[in-house]
């Protein structure tokens, strides 16, 4: 079945088209994993274009909203078919930092890549990350910080995770964060933007 119309609707952020196409595909009893794949493929293109500065943050938000509209229809079908996302990700902004725009973009793009995302919000203490990892057993943990003063909390969080005996892969990102800094605090990866974070997660999952 050709789902390129649906993929294009996601890329263009056409919410109504996405809704109509997903609804039709479900009615026609098309394979739910293929419908999902068409939307994830659309978000991949969006991520790629965002990385290349061909599109900008409003386009990304609008595309993600179109995907969400489609997913609201598709999720019950996926659940019924026993098709749950294979991987979980926990995402949060570290303690002392209330900034959430970057973190929300990552949450959005992770959902767009069909990860099961648990968003812990902002000002999340190291212990809260540890507790959430124990509860949800995610594949990936994403830490965000916007301030130079809260960056050290990323290190404290990673230390707390490792001290708890957990080897979950930890990604870090945020305006003041650099790849060198990520290395120096023992993170498993650093992403410059939300789209790169998705690429990185896929690499870490397949590694």
């Amino acid at each position: 079945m050709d789902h390129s119309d649906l993929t294009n609707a996601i890329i263009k952020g056409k919410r109504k088209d996405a809704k109509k196409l997903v609804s039709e595909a479900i009615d026609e009893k098309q394979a739910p994993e293929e419908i999902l794949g068409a939307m994830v493929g659309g978000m991949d293109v969006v991520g790629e274009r965002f990385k290349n500065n061909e599109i900008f943050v409003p386009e990304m938000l609008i595309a993600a909203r179109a995907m969400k509209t489609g997913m609201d229809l598709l999720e019950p079908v996926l659940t019924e078919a026993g098709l749950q996302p294979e991987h979980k990700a926990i995402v949060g902004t570290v303690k002392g930092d209330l900034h959430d725009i970057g973190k929300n973009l990552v949450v959005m793009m992770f959902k767009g890549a069909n990860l099961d995302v648990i968003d812990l919000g902002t000002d999340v203490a190291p212990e809260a990350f540890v507790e959430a990892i124990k509860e949800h057993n995610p594949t990936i943990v994403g830490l965000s910080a916007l301030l130079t003063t809260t960056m050290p909390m990323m290190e404290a969080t990673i230390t707390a995770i490792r001290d708890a005996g957990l080897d979950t892969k930890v990604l870090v990102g945020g305006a003041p964060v650099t790849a060198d800094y990520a290395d120096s605090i023992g993170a498993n990866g650093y992403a410059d933007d939300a789209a790169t974070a998705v690429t990185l997660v896929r690499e870490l999952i397949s590694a």
Partner: protein
Amino acid sequence: MTFPGLHILGERINPGFTSTKRLFDEEDMAGIQALAKKQADAGAEYLNINVGDRARTDPQFMVEVVKAVQAVVPTPLSFDFPNVEVQEYCLKAYSLEKAQGQLPIVNSISELRWDMLDLYKIAPFKMLLMASEREEGGEQVANKNADEVHQTARRMVQRVTSSAYGISNDDCFIDVSIGPVGADTEGLTKMALDGIKAIGSDTDLAGVHMSVGLSNASIMLPKEALDGGLLKIRIENAFLTLAVPAGMDFVLGTPWRHYQPLPADDIVMEGFVEAIEAGGFEQVMRIQEIYMDPDED
């Protein structure tokens, strides 16, 4: 034409700018001095000093930057790292004489960082007060509406001006904080503008200064608007066009950028005003319409 009464706190000494990061990495003090001078010559009335995380791991480097900058310009400085120890180093290194008696700015104090105020025992200073977050039961909480911003500003100014240090309203810079307008689905741009209006018309706060980190507003947006003109600077100018008459008198910005009022029929001004009035997701979609036709393939 520029904005009458708008002053610039020069933002360029910050590793967020790639060219500046290179100066830091190479410890190119002459380059940093040239950047300081360039900003001062372009009209910056303060120079913000931000060396990134290195302020914490290597505070002596921040001290060196402060001294190097003061060796070439008399412009007063703003120490951008909210940590008592780092601020203490900077205040001790700062030469009031070289700054021709002009006090530096401690950047920044929030309701959870009152210990910073006691640095006044070391040397007097002006201060940036964060109005975007407040303290509630020992916790840090983000302000979500203009009234919360206004009330936080009131509490903070009241507290510092009633301290034993003789601090006046004129020593206070209230940072109302703005984020990227193209990703703002929570009405935070409008909150900032309404907060500025409320603070600007509060007679108890007469004489306080207000400032925002202006470049934040236009990040993650393209270069050009639909009319072929520049987009980012006009997004910043649209904000200023609304904020300056409401009482905002400082921006953390780049002194050689062309800050100027926009006419009401400028497509960016129009789009910006409609976007923040619409709020929510509509805001993002209206901002997008300034630079692209969403129906075009």
